[in-house]
Each structure stands twice: as structure tokens, then as C-alpha cells.
């Protein structure tokens, strides 16, 4: 409410007086407007993923005589991937604390750890995909595998984009310092990375754990 009022500059001055509840009077900082806008984007991204999840759930049984999840999924590999992404979510939080406190060692160290863990996740995922294709279980084998590669690959593409964004943020802090606009971008990056981890929770539960148990 107040974010939109402030963005539009609307409302007479008496309307900006502090009121009860969340709707504070006065201008809202740009950081809050940017964070809220990016939160809306992330929710729309989650809705896009839910469409892929619905597709996967509908097609999960359509193996066309090919291999199913029980034969294909290696839960040991998935557990390591999950650990990588969860720890990277934690280090990303440490990096955002370091950025707000303007502590270079915290920020760069935690961002580098996030980069390594995210790259490790991607490496494991690419290796899994390559192994599936080599076994003749590529996306063309059955509707189940098409939906699997679309859903998991879309998450992998998001992680790839996140890693590029991460490198950009490290370079921008290095070149421009902890300016207000750079800090807003770090806020958005942190939200993006944590949201990827939330999607991964749904993914390893629905695709791998439920798929391997069937």
C-alpha cells in the first residue's frame, strides 16, 4: 500500500501521516520498493515453475515402456546436490549480512563459497543428465523424461543465471563499492538465490523422493 503511494507520489500530505497497522505514512525507501517488486517477480517465477510441476505430475506415469524414476534416480547424488544448495543458501545469507555491514572479507568469502557450492550443484546435475542420456534415457525417450528434463533443467538454468549474477555482484562491489544501488541489487540476488532453494525443496521431494519410492 504505502509502497505504491510513495512510488506514485500520490496523496495529500495529511494522508501520509503515520497510521495504525502496516501502512506507514510518508515516503518509503527505494530499497523496500525494489525488494517488493522483485518479490512479485519471484512469485510469478514460482507460478511458472508450478506449471512445470503440474506437467510433470500429469506425465510421471507416461514412461512409454521406458525406464521410470525407480531405475533412473540416484538418491545419493541428489542428497549431495541438496546439501550443496542448502549450504549455498546459508552462505548467501552471510554474504548479504557482510554487504550490509560493509565487511569485505565476509562478503567476498561468503560469495565465493556460494559460487563454489552452486557450481558443484550444477556439475552434479550436468553429470546426472549426461549419464541419463548415455543410458538412452534422454528427453526424447518418453513423456515422463521430457517433463523431467524440462522441470529439472529449468531449475538448472535458473541456477546458472544466478551464478552469473553472483559474479556480476562481486565485480560491481569490487569496482563501485557498497553504494546504495549496488546493495539493492545484492538484496535482489539474495532473494533470487533463496527462492531457487525453495523450488529445489519441492523438486527433490516431488521428483526424486516420490519418484524413487514408486
Amino acid at each position, binding site marked *: 500500500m504505502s509502497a505504491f503511494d510513495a512510488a506514485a507520489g500520490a496523496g495529500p500530505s495529511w494522508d501520509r501521516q503515520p497510521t495504525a497497522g*502496516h501502512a*506507514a505514512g510518508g515516503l518509503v525507501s527505494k530499497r523496500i520498493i525494489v525488494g*517488493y517488486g522483485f518479490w512479485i517477480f519471484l512469485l510469478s517465477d514460482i507460478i511458472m515453475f508450478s506449471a512445470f510441476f503440474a*506437467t510433470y*505430475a500429469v506425465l510421471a506415469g507416461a514412461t512409454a515402456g521406458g525406464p521410470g524414476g525407480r531405475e533412473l534416480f540416484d538418491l545419493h547424488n541428489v542428497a549431495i546436490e541438496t546439501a550443496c544448495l542448502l549450504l549455498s*543458501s546459508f552462505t548467501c545469507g552471510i554474504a*548479504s549480512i557482510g554487504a550490509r555491514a560493509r565487511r569485505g572479507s565476509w562478503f567476498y568469502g561468503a560469495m565465493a563459497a556460494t559460487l563454489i557450492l552452486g557450481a558443484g550443484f550444477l556439475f552434479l546435475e550436468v553429470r546426472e543428465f549426461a549419464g541419463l542420456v548415455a543410458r538412452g534415457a534422454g528427453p526424447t525417450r518418453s513423456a515422463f523424461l521430457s517433463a523431467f528434463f524440462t522441470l529439472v533443467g529449468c531449475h538448472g538454468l535458473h541456477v546458472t543465471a544466478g551464478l552469473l549474477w553472483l559474479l556480476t555482484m562481486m565485480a560491481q562491489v569490487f569496482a563501485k563499492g557498497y553504494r546504495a544501488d549496488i546493495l539493492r541489487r545484492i538484496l535482489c540476488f539474495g532473494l533470487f538465490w533463496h527462492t531457487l*532453494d*525453495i523450488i529445489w525443496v519441492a523438486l527433490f*521431494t516431488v521428483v526424486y523422493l516420490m519418484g524413487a519410492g514408486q
Partner: protein
Amino acid sequence: MSDSEQTGDPRNWDTAPGDEDLDGHEMAGDVGSYLVGLALATLLTVVSFFIAQTTLVWQPSIPVALAVLAIAQMGVHLVFFLHITTGPDNVNNVMALAFGVLIVLVLMTGSLWIMAHLNQNMMPMDQIMQMQR
């Protein structure tokens, strides 16, 4: 623009998602919040992987247990990593989240429901092929 443009009672300020309260506090407290989130998420993940492979419980209950654990872990991530809380400074963020969850539920249940009915009511594919001959 900066945070200093916010006027009025600090308790009425809005908070950006991902930000904790804007009043000054120590870094140790911030890290502690992330550590609690990491511990809870790790616990729920380990239980999920254990439940998925165990033979100790009645097998049809496993998908339900996995769904409950996943939703709990998403809640942990939202609260401790994204800092979406029920506080008065977070109403905008929570309302947006609630709308997103509504759309996700409509999309998922609607798709599964309609496709299951279509699947059930459609003639088996080999019979369709025979009719076309």
C-alpha cells in the same frame, strides 16, 4: 533516496522481503537467525531422505509425510532466509505470497484434476486406432 526518508513511528515501517527489521542490531544476531534456519532445514531434509527410503512405516503414508516435510521446510526457508514474517511491517509481502500460493494451488490441483478425469474418460488408445481402420 535512502532509509532516512521514512518518517513516523519505526514500528510502522514496511520491510523489504529479505531484509530483517531496519532498527540497528548486531551481526551476530543476523548470523544466528540463518544458523537456526540452516539447522531446521537440514533436519527436515535428512528426515525426508530417511522417510523416502525406510520400510519401517506403512508405505502409502510416505508421500503424505514427504509433502508435509517439504511444506514445513519451505516455511523454514521463508521465515529464516527470506525473512517473510507475520509482523505488521511484512503485511504487503505476506499478501503477495498468499496470492502466489493461491494461484499455485489452483494451477496444480486444477491441472491434475482435469487431466485425471480426461484420462479416465478417454477411450484406450488401441481402441481408437482400431476404429480408424
